[in-house]
Every structure is written in structure tokens, then in C-alpha cells.
């Protein structure tokens, strides 16, 4: 017994290490902002020297065409941030795998483990994303969210329990929850992109007619809007699948596929709001700011489902009872 307990404690220790690394990454990203501000760099998007040919369809920004021999200070800091984020991901992955080995099952059987895996999911989506786009500007948001999630996990939700309540013993646990975790990562990243979009959009609106908007490290509003849409077109079908697989599981565990349990209800609300977002995007007068707000409300519904329902509402999904 003591030997196996050791593995759980070790896993927790590794989580703390991951949190320390994430904190450093966060600082690096923050420095990169401060650095670029002070120097008033005119680097908008990718520096041409860094433009990879694969998967990169964006034309280099005109203002960055001057050859850059030495990386500017802000950029170097954000590169450090990215490297630390990769490291944190690897370390957190080790922690999660250790937890799974200790428990002898998939490491998402309770709120603590679910939070760890979700943080890992957010990092994974962010890092995969970094292959296709320059997303360093999103680093500060991602590290903050991950740190908050992990902090909540170790401080509030930590549990030594290894075994599952019977209703969770099903291969649907693997299918349903992994889909939900990836969606959580994608929704979280999309919300960060939307926030950036709203900032940029406001900046544009506040710029007097005929004047250039002030320089920003963030991508253009137009590009952010498209990015949000792309992430959500990936996440929405997956969320649909997550809800459906949950229903199939509920049928085998509780004898009905849909019962308007609070968790089910909020999953449905989340789904409907994101569907509304997809519609808003193709509706005249709703595209842009209004659609962006709808997608943020969708993320809020997702958060309510994740935290609110698990922690505060009595229902079949509160991980108690039968």
C-alpha cells in the first residue's frame, strides 16, 4: 500500500514542478509583452526568417519585411516562454501518466484528475496549434488558465481515491471524457482568441477614420475572427460527439439516454450556444462582435458545466452515489 501511495505523492510532486515551470513560462510571456512595448517594435506577425513553408498560408506582414539579424528582446522572451511551455507539457504528461499507473485506469476518474487532464488538454491544443500558426501572443493567456486550473486541482480538488464508483467503470469513460477534455482545450483556446479579437476590434473602432490603427502584437481582428471560427469548427462536431457518447453511456448506466440532469442540461446549453455562434457567423449584422460574444457565452456555459455543476449542484454527475 505504501509503495503505491508513493506513486500518487510523486505524481503530485511532479504536478507542482509543472506548475513552477508554467509560472516561469508565464513570466517569460509577460516579459515579451513588456519588451516589445518598450521598444515599439513594428513586428506584426511572423518574422520572415521564421516563416515555415509547411502549413503557413499567411503572407508575411509588410511592416516586417526589413531583414532581422538579431531577434528582438520581446521575441526572445516569448521563445523562451514557448520552450518552457513544451517542458511543462512534458512534465505534466509524466504526472498524469504516473497518476494513471497508480490508479490502474485512465487518469480522469474524479475532479482532481479531470482537472489535471484538462490542463494537459489545453496545453496540447495550444502546442499543436503552434505548429500551424504563430500563437506566442496567446501564451500569457494559456499559461494563466493552466496555472489556475492546476492550482484549483491541487488545493481544492485533490483526492487520494484510486477506485471508481461503479457508474464510471465503463469504456465510455475513456471515449466520452477524452472527447470532452479535447473540447475543453479547444474551447479555452478559442475563448482566448475571442478575447484578443474583441480587443483588436475595439482598437479598430476607436481609430479615427482614415488613420492607421495603433501597432499591436496581436494578429489583426480579421485574422483572429477567422481563427476563432476555425477552432470552433473543429470543436463543435467533437462536442456533439461528446454529448452523444455521454447519452449512450447514460443509457447503459442509468437506463435512459437523456434525463435533463444538470450536467446534461448544461452540455446541451453549451451545444446550442455554439450552434447559435455558427449561425451568427453567417447572419448579416451578427458576424463579428456579436458572434464573438455568443462564443464567449458558450465558453461560460462550458465552464458552468465543468465547475458549477460538479461542485455545487446535486445530480447524478456529482461523482457521488450510485
Amino acid at each position: 500500500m505504501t509503495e503505491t501511495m508513493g506513486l500518487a505523492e510523486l505524481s503530485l510532486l511532479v504536478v507542482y514542478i509543472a506548475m513552477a515551470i508554467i509560472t516561469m513560462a508565464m513570466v517569460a510571456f509577460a516579459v515579451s509583452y513588456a519588451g516589445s512595448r518598450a521598444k515599439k517594435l513594428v513586428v506584426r506577425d511572423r518574422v520572415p526568417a521564421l516563416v515555415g513553408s509547411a502549413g503557413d498560408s499567411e503572407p508575411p506582414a509588410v511592416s516586417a519585411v526589413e531583414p532581422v539579424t538579431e531577434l528582438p528582446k520581446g521575441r526572445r522572451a516569448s521563445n523562451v516562454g514557448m520552450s518552457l511551455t513544451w517542458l511543462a507539457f512534458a512534465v505534466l504528461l509524466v504526472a498524469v501518466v504516473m497518476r494513471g499507473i497508480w490508479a490502474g485506469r485512465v487518469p480522469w476518474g474524479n475532479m482532481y484528475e479531470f482537472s489535471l487532464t484538462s490542463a494537459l488538454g489545453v496545453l496540447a491544443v495550444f502546442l499543436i496549434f503552434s505548429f500551424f500558426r504563430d500563437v506566442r501572443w496567446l501564451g500569457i493567456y494559456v499559461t494563466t488558465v493552466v496555472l489556475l486550473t492546476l492550482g484549483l486541482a491541487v488545493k481544492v480538488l485533490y483526492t487520494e481515491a484510486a477506485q471508481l464508483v461503479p457508474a464510471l467503470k465503463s469504456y465510455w469513460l475513456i471515449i466520452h471524457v477524452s472527447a470532452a477534455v479535447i473540447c475543453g482545450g479547444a474551447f479555452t483556446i478559442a475563448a482566448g482568441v475571442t478575447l484578443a479579437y474583441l480587443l483588436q476590434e475595439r482598437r479598430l473602432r476607436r481609430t479615427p477614420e482614415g488613420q492607421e490603427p495603433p501597432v499591436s502584437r496581436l494578429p489583426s481582428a480579421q485574422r483572429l475572427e477567422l481563427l476563432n471560427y476555425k477552432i470552433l469548427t473543429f470543436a463543435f462536431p467533437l462536442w456533439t460527439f461528446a454529448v452523444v457518447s455521454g447519452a449512450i453511456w447514460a443509457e447503459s448506466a442509468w437506463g435512459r439516454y437523456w434525463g435533463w440532469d444538470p450536467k446534461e442540461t448544461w452540455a446541451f446549453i453549451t451545444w446550442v450556444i455554439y450552434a447559435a455562434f455558427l449561425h451568427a457567423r453567417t447572419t448579416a449584422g451578427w458576424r463579428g462582435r456579436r458572434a464573438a460574444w455568443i462564443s464567449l457565452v458558450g465558453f461560460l456555459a462550458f465552464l458552468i458545466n465543468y465547475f458549477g455543476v460538479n461542485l455545487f449542484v446535486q445530480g447524478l454527475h456529482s461523482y457521488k452515489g450510485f
Partner: protein
Amino acid sequence: MSDLASDLSTQPAAPPPLGTKGFFRWAWRQLTSMRTALILLVFLAIASIPGSILPQQGIDPVRVNEWIANNPTSGPILKRFGFFDVYASPWFAAIYLLLFISLIGCILPRSFMHARALRAKPPVAPRNLTRLSSSTEVSSELGSDAVIDRAERVFRAKRWRVRRGQDEGGPWIAAEKGYWRETGNLVFHIALIVLLIGVGYGSLWGWKGNVIVVSGKGFSDTLTQYDVWGGGRMVSPSDLPPFSFTLNEFTAEFERGEAQRGAPRFFEGKLTVRDTPGAVPYDTTIGVNEPLSVDGVKVFLVGHGYAPHIIVRDTTGAVVFDDTVPFLPQDGSFTSTGVVKVPDATPQIGIQGLFLPTAALDEILGPYSTFPAPDDPGLFMSAWVGDLGLNTGATQSVYRLDTAQMTLTGREALRPGETWTLPDGMGSVEFVDFTRWASFQIAHDPGQGIALIAVTFAIVGLLLSLFVKRRRMWVRARPAETGSTVVAAGLARGDDERLESLVNDVATAAASDSAQNGRRK
């Protein structure tokens, strides 16, 4: 702009015209517009919220009554407007029905349009292609017909649908691809309607019931055996399939470690099942996530508890009651309550019992259980004598004792095997031993298959709709002094970051001879 881009534009919000016919046409247009669909979706989301906050009749009727009792002003008002049964309330139904009417009104014309588009050729090339936002112009050494030939080969290799033509501007080719996008979108939306039909069908023709079966006893599928039974409007209880089963044994295990101590870990029931009264019986096990399928019906294990075996003797020593009585768990440690009614004794005897699998005594709260497994079982009883009130005609719950016309004779705590002699020679109560019971939900939902097929189609349709790109492209070749001038242009539905480069690729591929294929302009 071509129709591809304007297909989806919403109708302008014109004021309603005069005249009934005109008004209805206007109202129908409004209802089936994208903006209405959007607003109804938002309403649907908002309308779902109260049901997750307030207790709901269909899930927890006891808490509904408590809530209303605790909120005497707002409770009855909320009840009147269906807030305790949100998902069956008229206003909730109004929203989703409007949404689905809007959906049908939206899908029908689009289906016809799409069916026509599937059979139509790509549209004629516009005269001036450079006016389109994604266009490019390159010069070629090839003749104009050769350019178009090459362009056709490029398109056909990528399975575009093509159409060639010729006008005073020279030869042209039109190509289109990505019809699956719209097909997928229509499949998705139609699948949602089918899903609603499946859900509705299931609730009209489906039924479900709950029953508690004590270990060692049996159940046969007739209405009278159920503790609770509810069926759709189109079901008659005589339709119940005539299977039966016996619960031979029920096993439950609980967490004994420090963390989550007492949490359930494992449940299993061993059953002997008969599909029909005369059929050969067979053994099977049932667990959580492992329902039993029999004769189109599913049996789910949904709960369990303890059933003490109690024998009551009357003043003369004759046995007047001898049965295992299911007690209902009140907390996670299975502090369980139950009632024994002995109408055959004179005077009648009623017993309120508290079964504790692991008994403990709290100075203030009284007896309670500290662990759900029967490590140290005890039965605490209060005995009442008098009139059980069974003859008043009102139905009584078997789990509640009406003590209005009874007097308390005494209280006692027993271990298994002990007997309590009631005061004043009223008889005796023996706590022989105890066994377990399991509760089953038995359900038949004929709409499930439809719903599952519908959601499968919905997901596939959604993927097509989101990831297939609908593109239209044209290439014109105008004869020049040497060779020709090639103009290519493209149009896409929605955002399409790759269109620009595709247009360039096609233009270069068509303009260059094979040796230079792939050269950028």
C-alpha cells in the same frame, strides 16, 4: 456576386405588407429566416437554464414539494408556469417547435435548390473575371484552346465538375466542387428533425417502471408488480412482454481506504431469467453499465439496500408476520428506514425501524450508520399498537406508518437473532437476519434506434458541412500576340484562405507547358 455568395443572405427586414395573404407570406419569411433561427436557438438555451437550477418534477418530486413549501409566495407562481417541469412545459415546447418549424421552412427550399444545383452545370464564366476578389492574370506561350485544355485536365484530375464555352472573349472553362458541403448541411439539419421524431416516438410508445426485488425473490413483468410505472400515451400495460426473473444474490462492495471511505465500488446481481412463462430459465449477471436485454426490454440495476427479516408474534405467540422487508437507504452509509405493518394482530401492530449496517449512536442525533457494509448491523425499532388506518380507503405508502390512531408501546435495539418481547404482553418481534435488495429500472424505448441513427447522420453531415469547401472557378484564355493571356478567378462559400493560392496554381498550371509546370508567376 453570384448566387453562391448570395444563397445565404438573409431576407431584408421589410415591413409587413397589407392583406392577409401578403401578411402570412411575410410572417413565414420572417420565421424561416436565419436571424429567427439564431434568436430561437438563443431562447432555447436560456429556457433550459431554470430546469437545472430548480428541482424538477420528473427527477425529484420530493424536493419540488419541499421547495414550494419553503417558498410560499414564489413557489406556487413558479409551479403554475411550469418551472418545476420545464422540459415538458408549454413554453419550452413552443420554443423548440417554432425552431423546428423554422428549420423545416428553411430546409425545404434549400433542398430543392440543392437538388437542382446537383444536376446543373457550373455557371457560365463572367465576362470580367478580374473583378472577382480572388483572381490572377498570367501570360502563356500556349494557344488559348490549349490553355483551356490544360485547365480542364487539372480540374478533372481533382474531380471538379467542369463546363466549357466560347464567346467573343475567347474560350473559357467553369469548374465547381464541394457539393457535399451543402448536402452535409442539409443532412445535418434533417437529422435533427429525425432526432426529434425519434425522441417523441420513444416518449409516446415507450414506458418505464421501477421495482425493488429482495434477494431470493422474483419479479414478473406485469403492471401490479411495479412500485412505479409510467408509460407514453400510446402504451397499454397489456403490451408488457411476459418475462420474469429471480434475484438469486446481490453483492456490493465499498471503499475501505481513507479517501472516499464508503464510496460504492462494485455492484452485481445474479439473476435467473425466463423470457416467457414456459421458457427454459437461464442464469445471468447484471451490473451498473451492464443492463440486461430481454424481449425488447432493458433491465437496469439502479439501486440497492438492506431488507431485515422480521417475525412478529401476537399475544398468543402465533406468527402474524414473517417476511423480509426492504428498508430505504437515507444516506451514503445506508442508514435505512422501513416499516412493518401487521394488520392481522389484535390490536394491530406497526413498527418503525431503522436498520444500520454499521451501527453507532450519537448522543444528539441518535442511532446512525458509519459504513455502508454490514460490519456491525443493528435494528432500532419503535412499536405502535392501535389502528393502522388501512380501512379508510386512502392508499398508504408501504414505507410510512400512519400513527394517528396508534400509541407508542416502546423502543428497542436488536442485533440479528435477537427477539424483543413487547411491553404489556402485546407479543414479540424477532430480528432474524437480513438480506439485500436491488432496485431495477425496466424500460422500453422504441425511439432509441431512430435517435441513434439520426445523431450519427447529424455528426457526419456536420463534418461535411464544416470541412468540405464549396468552390467555383473560371479560367479564360484570350489570344494574344504570342500565345494567350490567361485569367483565372475563384469564388467560395464562406471563408476560404486557400482559394487565392488555388487560383494561382490553376492559372500557372494551365498557362505553362509541362516542363515548367508548377512555376509560380
